[in-house]
């Protein structure tokens, strides 16, 4: 069988972050049960950051490790996002330009809420498997920023949406896919997909979100069970507890994943003892939560951020199989799997994801409120603007010397970017 999967993967978790418990107190949320939600920090996009800069900053370190000949074999670039900046022109065109990729490359964008990253990933896997261009590589970049300002008015869609602000992050994951799956060898054909129409969360107007937290959770839980059920029909002898040494979930916030794991253990693995479920959670799920708890929900890329976290924090002395669950509101979901080795972990450690998160700028509540006040926010459809890189001077200083892209200006809708270093 053809080898296919992730050759390399990088996460960009922003250049500034906020302490989420501080935010919860500031917003006077009920903090008594807030700790159960397992949120810690969230990345916040600065005025000179947009989905393009996030995408490029995630992909650049991967590209820098390739020879020119290898780079030129990238023949498919898919951006996956629900934070599009134009109805027609896709983010992939900017990403292609600033990464200096070969022009003989397919460029386009995919949307399906938080499932977009998996949608792009599976399309790329199939492109490699099809062997239509033997030896070609694909670059998939899931990139999103939160637009947590709630749509005002209405009845159902605004109720109890208070977790959206603390959980909504910003970030991107870049995934290089080829027939050399050094990081994650995909189990070909082991896919359970499940989708149906539901109005749980959405982005019905520019620069804002709407949703119903209860409905979204219910839909997520339904999909978790049904996608796995379909997977188990296609993979002989699969066992939820034994087959996968780790589980990487789409992680809107840790508490939601803990709930989903608990339900799956009870209903699918038939384990009812809470203590036993807790041990399994710590062993198989927590390694994948670490980065998610520091960046927040980055929508399309979240399941891959969880995968990257699992690879960095798991024990891979022996190769291990990881089960991945992806969910995107609206909705579509998928359970799939792959194998990770010690070499995968060594390669991922070289990217220093942990260190990059540690080096981000810690925003104060005042600075965060300054950002929220809107003076720095670029509205959808902005025609001309020069970005203020000094709105949060400390954040700019913290990025100094880094090979990162930033948005300098928009001129007649055309976005112009420059490298910080």
């Amino acid at each position, binding site marked *: 069988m053809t080898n296919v999967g992730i050759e390399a993967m990088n996460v960009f978790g922003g250049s500034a972050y906020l302490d989420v418990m501080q935010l919860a107190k500031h917003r006077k949320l009920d903090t008594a049960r807030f700790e159960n939600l397992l949120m810690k920090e969230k990345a916040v996009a600065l005025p000179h950051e947009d989905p393009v800069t996030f995408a490029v900053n995630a992909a650049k370190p991967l590209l820098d490790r390739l020879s020119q000949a290898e780079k030129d074999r990238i023949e498919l670039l898919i951006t996956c996002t629900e934070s599009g900046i134009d109805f027609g022109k896709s983010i992939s065109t900017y990403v292609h330009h600033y990464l200096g990729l070969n022009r003989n490359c397919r460029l386009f964008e995919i949307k399906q809420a938080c499932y977009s990253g998996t949608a792009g990933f599976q399309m790329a896997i199939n492109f490699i498997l099809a062997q239509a261009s033997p030896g070609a590589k694909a670059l998939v970049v899931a990139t999103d920023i939160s637009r947590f300002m709630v749509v005002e008015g209405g009845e159902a869609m605004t109720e109890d949406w208070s*977790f959206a602000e603390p959980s909504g992050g910003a970030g991107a994951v870049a995934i290089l896919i080829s027939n050399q799956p050094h990081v994650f060898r995909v189990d070909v054909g082991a896919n359970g997909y499940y989708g149906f129409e539901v109005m749980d969360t959405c982005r019905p107007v520019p620069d804002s979100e709407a949703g119903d937290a209860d409905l979204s959770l219910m839909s997520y839980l339904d999909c978790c069970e049904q996608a796995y059920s379909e997977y188990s029909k296609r993979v002989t002898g699969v066992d939820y507890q034994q087959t996968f040494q780790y589980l990487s979930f789409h992680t809107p916030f840790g508490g939601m994943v803990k709930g989903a794991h608990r339900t799956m253990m009870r209903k699918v693995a038939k384990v009812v003892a809470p203590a036993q479920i807790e041990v399994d959670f710590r062993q198989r799920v927590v390694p994948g939560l670490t980065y998610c708890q520091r960046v927040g929900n980055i929508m399309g890329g979240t399941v891959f951020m969880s995968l990257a976290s699992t690879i960095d924090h798991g024990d891979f002395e022996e190769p291990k199989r990881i089960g991945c669950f992806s969910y995107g509101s609206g909705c579509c979901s998928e359970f799939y799997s792959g194998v990770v080795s010690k070499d995968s972990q060594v390669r991922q450690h070289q990217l220093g994801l942990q260190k990059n998160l540690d080096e981000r700028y810690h925003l104060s509540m005042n600075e965060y409120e300054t950002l929220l006040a809107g003076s720095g926010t670029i509205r959808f459809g902005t025609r001309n603007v020069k970005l203020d890189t000094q709105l949060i001077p400390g954040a700019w200083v913290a990025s100094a010397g880094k090979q990162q892209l930033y948005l300098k200006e928009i001129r007649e809708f055309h976005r112009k970017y420059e490298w910080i270093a």
Partner: protein
Amino acid sequence: MNKEEIFKMIVQHTCEVIPELEDHTFKSGDQLKELGANSVDRAEIISLAMESLSLQIPMVEVFGAKNLDELATLLYENQ
């Protein structure tokens, strides 16, 4: 189960998820949110209730109850 039994069963699961409510006197108009249950707690309570009834329907089918009484009715009708 009849509706009253389902109501009692929901109350029992609510107390499992939020032990602080052990001494609370539950009324039909009580809202889980007002009782301090966050969205994860609410989904857990409904999930446990559905499992107690061995309901094999999607959770989204029992979405929309505004209080405990409505939730008991919804579950009763979907039995």
